[in-house]
């Protein structure tokens, strides 16, 4: 019987393993999150599901009123507002420089700029924790060489956010500059030639040919970086534990703390579902805009 099922549907042998895993560990969990978010599930409930009570939308109401959650949300907005433009400008700048010539030097430089992208966030967070250290860190030592005062990199509420942004930008420049570089190298040579015949200067070529034609790449980098900030987790967890006083907390870290530190699974599930809805909305908007963008070209 089982045998006939597969011989009538040979494709099943191939797609079934992946389908089962994706259904059980990716699609089904979203429904579980929604279901659990309507209950008061906690550690006792985890051991004995009979103890779990249905509480309606109470968790969502609490979430909206929760100062900690609101702070994590607005921290994320801060990361997006300053982090996205920084990543776009920095990686575009590097890409323009790397596009300047073609020889072994440029290939080697590309490798150097790319290197941080392959490293793991955890190790990088530990390394930057040292570099940012008030007393023993390299950054404050370099500042002292110029007679500049020490910067409280990770202990001041706003500077700590900026420090995390700088580190994340450092790590993502490599990946994003490749996107820009690919786009730059895709610009047809006759565009430049035509501009030269018209007597365009270098900066004019940059401003009127390169930048407008990079629209799609810019959009891609900006939107993936934006979605990335909503998933920010390892760096604040390892470097600041979300502090000082919650000022670097992220939505993902908030969910983690509620779920796995305090065992408030119902509440954490509500946070998870909200995060899912935010990312779903952002992805769908990105899709829509991308289609429109392609339509114009």
């Amino acid at each position, binding site marked *: 019987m089982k045998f006939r099922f597969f011989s009538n549907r040979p494709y099943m042998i191939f797609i079934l393993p992946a389908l089962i895993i994706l259904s059980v560990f*990716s699609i089904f969990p979203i429904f579980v999150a929604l279901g659990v978010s309507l209950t008061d599930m906690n550690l006792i409930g985890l051991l004995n599901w009979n103890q779990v009570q249905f509480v309606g939308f109470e968790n969502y109401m609490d979430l909206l009123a929760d100062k900690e959650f609101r702070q994590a949300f607005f921290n994320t907005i801060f990361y997006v507002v300053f982090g996205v433009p920084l990543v776009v400008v920095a990686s575009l700048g590097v890409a323009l420089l790397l596009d300047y010539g073609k020889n072994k030097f440029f290939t080697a430089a590309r490798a150097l700029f790319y290197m941080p992208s392959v490293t793991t966030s955890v190790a990088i967070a*530990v390394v930057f924790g040292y570099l940012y250290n008030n007393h023993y860190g*390299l950054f404050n030592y370099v500042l002292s060489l110029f007679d500049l005062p020490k910067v409280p990199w990770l202990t001041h509420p706003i500077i700590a956010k900026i420090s995390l942004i700088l580190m994340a930008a450092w790590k993502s420049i490599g990946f994003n500059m490749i996107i820009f570089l690919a786009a730059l190298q895709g610009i047809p040579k006759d565009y430049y030639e035509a501009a030269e015949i018209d007597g365009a200067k270098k900066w004019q070529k940059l401003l009127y040919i390169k930048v407008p034609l990079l629209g799609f790449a810019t959009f891609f980098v900006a939107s993936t970086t934006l979605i990335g900030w909503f998933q920010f987790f390892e760096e604040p967890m390892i470097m600041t534990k979300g502090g000082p006083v919650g000022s670097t907390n992220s939505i993902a870290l908030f969910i983690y703390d509620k*779920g796995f530190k305090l065992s408030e699974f119902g509440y954490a599930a509500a946070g998870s579902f909200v995060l*899912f809805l935010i990312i779903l909305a952002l992805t769908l908007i990105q899709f829509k805009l991308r289609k429109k963008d392609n339509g114009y070209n």
Partner: protein
Amino acid sequence: MNQQKLSAERLLVYIVLLAGGILMTLPLFWAIFTSFKTAAEAMQTPPSLFPNEWLIDNYKKLFVELNFGTYLRNTLVLVAFSFLGLFINMMAGYGFAKFKFKNKEKIFYLVLATMMIPGQATMIPNYLILNKMGLTNTMAGIILPGLAGAFTIFLFRQFMETIPDDLIEASRIDGAGNIRIFMQIVAPICKPIIAVQAILGFIHAWNSFLWPLIVANSEDLYTLGVGLSLLKGQNVSDFALQMTGSSLMIVPVIILFLFCQKYIVEGFTTSGLK
């Protein structure tokens, strides 16, 4: 005149790129150099770039006094299973590329839709599901959820659609079954994409953190990433040791990157991985 101006500009580009390149890699080298220092030297002012003496005591400490041998073994187990995951994705890609069946498009869109579901949103429900299955604090629980990935399936499907149907039909007429066609005809053609995905899979498994952190309760199951975060928490002021743990995670990936740069850059760009 023009020539001179151009070369000055060129020189400036070279200088900026060189300085930028050094700045970009400085944190990595700083960590690696510090890993060979003593704890005291890592905290001295002014700091030294190179260690006074290149000591490997910190590395010994990781493996002898701390449990990094176990963490390394667990990480390598995850790496090995990432290759099984690659195989599962490749099979699914083939199923979607070369078979016709009812609702194929719909099922494939469902697979793609899972890309919109981030691990940070499913960590709580997935933990509850694994708990019900009795798989929390087991290696199986750490491995299972990561075995299939929509984007890899998508890439394999795209690639396999370019394989001519005639080639597959010819083998079928020669009496080859589905599995044999897949293993002996399709898989060899896919070598280039398998290479890229295997390298990406290695890096991904090597760097894995969030999921093992949640599922593993005992140190026996920790990966390098989880072990490193534990080490940082327990040795707050031993920066040399912290840098040693970090270097242990960073250096193998950098070496892999230097050898397979082309594959990695290509793979990262097409898959949108970060």
